[in-house]
């Protein structure tokens, strides 16, 4: 068995900059970050925390069928998404709300999915959405799409040219539960075989709904990738600097043609799996308390204060987050059901007799009801 190394960590849980030994080789990847970047990371996380809470409330008020909270996982997502270049392509699961925000996706488009007003939500080919692909609900399926996409990037010659505007990497998010899916193993095989420009970003939030990660694996999950010939590292996923630095390094390496890598971010789902779940049935108060003490936002706030971030910044961020949530609520309530035609319109790219006939029938039927024929 491969030798274990400690998880990469820059910030201690009380927010002091104290890189551990594993973090040392990642230090250069923090070098370019400015105070302004740090504040951006904080705003990304704080706004996500706030709208995430708003969405849970909206679900409780009957405005959404479901909401999968990201509470607790903001640092893993923000660090990784901020490390990606604009041309990089991100494949999410269904909980990467912070990464979606970073890449420019309108959070209302996620709400639309969870409200039942849309299936996929947003157009991943629209430049405003930052190459952030659609959420995928069948666990692990997106890892293969990401690997195939990365194969295409390599076939296009958009790897290892040395041109920072051309070289492209793919980042795929997945969770601890998904590592038991065959598709995830197959994606490791295809990625290793094709040496794809790709980073596998695992958020180990310790739970697959109610099943603990110990049921999925007897070894730390980052070691799995090594069995497939994919270099891997474990990081403190609640340390946004660790997430940024590890992602930056492995995305850079992927773009330059060094093949795939895997990052396991140790984090914790503070909330429920989704609003349909009751985590008190399987999670102990002690576990929760342990991870609440490692809250990624509080930790980074302590760090920023120690670096001299002004009080006004934090007050402004609270106000900005509140405004963001209020706007999202307002727009959520105005979201309408899609047209009936949308059920048929894009089943096929080109006309298909069955859907064409059925839409015509439904239109005529609905018309007959309205006219009382």
């Amino acid at each position: 068995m491969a030798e274990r190394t400690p998880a990469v960590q820059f910030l201690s849980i009380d927010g002091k900059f104290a890189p551990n030994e594993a973090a040392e080789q990642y230090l250069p990847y923090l070098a370019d970050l400015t105070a302004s970047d740090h504040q951006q990371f904080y705003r990304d996380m704080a706004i996500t925390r706030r709208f995430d809470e708003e969405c849970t409330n909206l679900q409780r008020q009957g405005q959404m069928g479901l909401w999968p909270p990201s509470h607790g996982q903001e640092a893993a997502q923000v660090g990784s998404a901020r490390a990606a270049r604009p041309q990089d392509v991100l494949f999410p699961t269904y909980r990467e709300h912070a990464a979606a925000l970073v890449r420019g996706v309108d959070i209302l488009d996620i709400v639309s999915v969870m409200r039942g007003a849309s299936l996929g939500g947003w157009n991943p080919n629209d430049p405003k959405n930052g190459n952030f692909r659609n959420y995928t609900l069948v666990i692990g399926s997106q890892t293969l799409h990401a690997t195939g996409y990365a194969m295409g990037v390599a076939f296009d010659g958009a790897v290892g040219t040395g041109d920072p505007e051309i070289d492209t990497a793919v980042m795929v998010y997945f969770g601890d539960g998904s590592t038991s899916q065959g598709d995830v193993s197959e994606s490791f095989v295809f990625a290793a075989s094709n040496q794809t420009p790709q980073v596998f970003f695992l958020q180990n939030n310790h739970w697959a709904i109610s099943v603990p990660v110990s049921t999925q694996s007897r070894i730390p999950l980052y070691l799995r990738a090594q069995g497939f010939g994919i270099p891997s590292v474990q990081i403190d996923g609640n340390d946004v600097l660790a997430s940024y630095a590890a992602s930056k390094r492995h995305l850079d390496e992927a773009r330059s043609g060094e093949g795939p890598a895997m990052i396991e971010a140790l984090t914790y789902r503070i909330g429920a799996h989704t609003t349909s779940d009751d985590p008190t049935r399987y999670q102990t108060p002690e576990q929760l308390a342990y991870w609440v003490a490692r809250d990624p936002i509080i930790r980074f706030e302590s760090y920023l204060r120690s670096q001299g971030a002004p009080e006004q910044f934090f007050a402004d961020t609270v106000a900005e987050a509140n405004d963001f949530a209020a706007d999202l609520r307002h727009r959520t309530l105005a979201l309408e059901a899609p047209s009936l035609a949308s059920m048929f319109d894009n089943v096929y790219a080109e006309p298909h007799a069955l859907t064409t006939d059925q839409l015509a029938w439904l239109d005529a039927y609905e018309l007959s009801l309205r006219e009382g024929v």
Partner: protein
Amino acid sequence: MAASVEELPLAKALNAGLRAAMATDDRVLLMGEDIGTLGGVFRVTEGLQDEFGKKRVLDTPLAESGIVGTAIGLAMRGYRPVCEIQFDGFIFPAFDQITSQLAKMTNRTSGAVHMPVVIRVPYGGHIGAVEHHQESPEAYFAHTAGLRVVSPSTPNDAYWMIQEAIRSDDPVMFFEPKSRYWPKGPVDFTSSAAPLHATRVVRTGTDVTLLAHGAMVSTLLQAAQVAADEGVSVEVLDLRSLSPIDFGPIISSVEKTGRLIVCQEAPGFVSVGSEIAATVAERAFFSLQSPVLRVSGFDTPYPASKIETFYLPDADRVLDAIDRSLAY
């Protein structure tokens, strides 16, 4: 091409069709198990890796879900992948990627993402093979919204239909009748025979209509010849497309003959033949002189090959159905 019409086996016609598609569009790439160096276990892709290189003819790892799942990603990047599933019975590891991912991508993205992916599946019996190598799983895919499903029965159709399938912006399940890979037939390289989704009349008659796709079409033609010798005029239709189904020629034929027998190697229960029988009953009820009959494989697992001839419908079983239909 040297000659405009050439006698080719279906497998070589497919090879020529794939070559033509790849030469026309450099976004077309082939992927599958053993399709490169070996040329595929049925040699359908023989020589193509030498001609187009390893980046366009990919020997993939041995994982069907991986093949289709990565093809989806390649299609997102703008490629037009043609996947080979080595045998019919090996398609099920890819079932989620085909039915939940590939089939739904265009709809769930409101048309923003198209999936021009072809999945080639050698299917059907008559080759004396072991378990999972002789099945006819096409109904699963015809049942799935978002997929197009076609099956050529002749070398000429194989040559043209594979190119049309590759040109389609929708995912196409391309079922190749493997027992018909070897017999030769004319391939006209100058013009397409019929649109991808057209049902075609392959023999005209007046007393009863027989309908099938893939390898069963040749069985129907045998049966029709025997029936003709006995004074029964049989019309034979080649379905060619299982989704969508081109019902126009079927209804027209039934209006003429009043009798329809639907034939398939696949099990009959909840099958393509069942759907055709139901639709014809709805649309041509007053033209029917007898119930629509199905001649199908049995609703059992595909049997040990020493008894497969008792499982697969043959000309005698079709003739028996003709007798039953005419007895009404």
